[in-house]
């Protein structure tokens, strides 16, 4: 059934009780041409683009819990393409372009809101770095705008501009950046993939891999063995675990990242703002809650919940940027398991096992990448080689000395 204004009107006659299921939940078949492990945004987007762009429809997405229950449903939903390096910016800009047409291509409201993303700077050298990044964005066809203090005072009057230690001097704005509704992204891709014949199988955990003569043969799951011509891993924080089933070690650590939501308040923040002197970012959801986050907890973790010292640190950073936050109460917080690579950039490409492909290492930033990541991963799975846009994200860059050091700080698993 196609979603439309007329359909909403029609369904109202039956008190909205006759909407069909958003996706069917079939029993797994004995084998598929392509099996995607992980029903987050990336896995579902990959399945959708395999079916829609490459005509590969004998595809299953296996999810150990419920779709979107991983980081896709736990993130702070910021979408942007404000990167510096050649390996990154064209990929993220392509992803942002896909976001701009996503609701039409999926026939689903993902509540994409291009409300702008503003990165604040607090020193001359930070401003120079941001100008350089803004210019790199413009040269890659993205949008960027430098804002001085006067302009900022008009849109964000409540910032602590004259903070003694970190005065706000200005900001780098990407007007096309913004936020989207995280769950809707998973559901929209699932629905569109399902309509093209993809099997979405929930409560199906992959527990082992069968490899014959160096090539993938299929997967052991909690719902039995499933044969596969090709397998694509898109399991975020569980990437190392899945890779170890194929005897591979990955250049990443799993860490917990927290997010926080305040009580609903009247419209206050109509853009996304990030603090440049500490680690803090905030936006306001359509329901009115302030959605914010900051640093990792700082040690390897597979716990989908965080610890209080980090919560306190994030609140302090928020207060330093926006003192009026002190009056607002936090109502919920949670954590997600992040796949932190050693250079802060993702991995999308081939592995040493024939037919086994990896999509992971998303660090803090994989939500914005969802459509782009699915698009290039589908290409890579279909053709057996990376697309130009993910060529730099190959796994063997770590042994070839071609790491993508976006922040220029060297290898450590706490970048994004």
């Amino acid at each position, binding site marked *: 059934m196609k979603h439309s204004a007329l359909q909403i009107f029609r369904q109202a006659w039956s008190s909205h009780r006759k909407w069909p299921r958003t996706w069917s939940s079939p029993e797994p078949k004995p084998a598929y041409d392509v099996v995607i492990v992980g029903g987050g945004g990336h896995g579902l987007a990959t399945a959708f683009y395999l079916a829609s762009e490459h005509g590969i429809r004998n595809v299953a997405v296996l999810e150990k819990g419920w779709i979107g229950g991983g980081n896709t449903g736990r993130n702070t939903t910021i979408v942007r393409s404000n990167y510096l390096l050649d390996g990154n910016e064209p990929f993220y800009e392509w992803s942002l372009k896909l976001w701009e047409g996503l609701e039409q291509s999926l026939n689903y409201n993902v509540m994409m809101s291009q409300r702008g993303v503003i990165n604040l700077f607090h020193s001359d050298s930070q401003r120079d770095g941001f100008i350089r990044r803004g210019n790199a964005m413009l040269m890659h066809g993205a949008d960027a705008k430098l804002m001085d203090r006067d302009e900022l005072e008009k849109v964000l009057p409540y910032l602590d501009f004259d903070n003694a230690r970190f005065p706000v001097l200005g900001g780098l704005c990407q007007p096309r950046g913004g936020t989207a509704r995280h769950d809707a992204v998973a559901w929209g891709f699932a629905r569109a993939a399902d309509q093209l014949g993809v099997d979405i199988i929930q409560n199906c955990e992959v527990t082992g891999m069968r490899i014959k003569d160096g090539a993938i043969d299929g997967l052991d799951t909690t719902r039995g063995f499933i044969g596969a011509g090709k397998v694509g891993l898109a399991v975020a924080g569980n990437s190392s675990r899945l890779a170890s089933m194929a005897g591979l070690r990955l*250049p990443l650590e799993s860490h917990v990242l927290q997010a926080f939501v305040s009580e609903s308040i009247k419209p206050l923040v109509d853009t996304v703002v990030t603090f440049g002197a500490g680690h803090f970012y905030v936006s306001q959801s359509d329901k009115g809650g302030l959605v914010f986050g900051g640093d990792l907890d700082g040690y*390897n973790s597979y716990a989908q919940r965080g610890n209080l010292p980090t919560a306190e640190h994030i609140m302090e950073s928020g207060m330093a940027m926006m003192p009026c936050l002190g009056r607002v109460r936090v109502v919920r917080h949670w954590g997600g398991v992040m796949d932190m690579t050693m250079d802060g950039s993702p991995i999308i490409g081939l592995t040493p096992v024939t037919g086994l492909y990896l999509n992971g290492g998303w660090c803090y930033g994989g939500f914005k990448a969802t459509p782009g990541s699915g698009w290039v991963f589908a290409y890579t799975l279909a053709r057996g080689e990376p697309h130009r846009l993910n060529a730099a994200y190959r796994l063997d860059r*770590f042994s070839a000395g071609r790491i993508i050091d976006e922040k220029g700080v060297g290898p450590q698993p706490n970048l994004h």
Partner: protein
Amino acid sequence: MLEIECPWCGACDQSEFSYGGEAHIARPKTPADLSDQEWGDYLFNRENPKGWHREQWCHTAGCRRWFNAVRDTVTCRIKAYYRMGAVPPEEDGR
């Protein structure tokens, strides 16, 4: 807040410590003999287990000494502490 036991100072708040990642990654003795894959593996690849993890901590805001701990990466429970250079206690899940 975790409570971490420094082998020298005893139990202190987590905020006094900094994390040093996976323990027992020894620098290869003859780097020139290694292939790019082996060198890349040493530099970047990690075990990253879900469960018991042997890891390094530093008592940064205390005695500033490094030590090892065996911590569960799901529950955060720490079952053993031992000094740098010491043989790790058995990983028997007890």
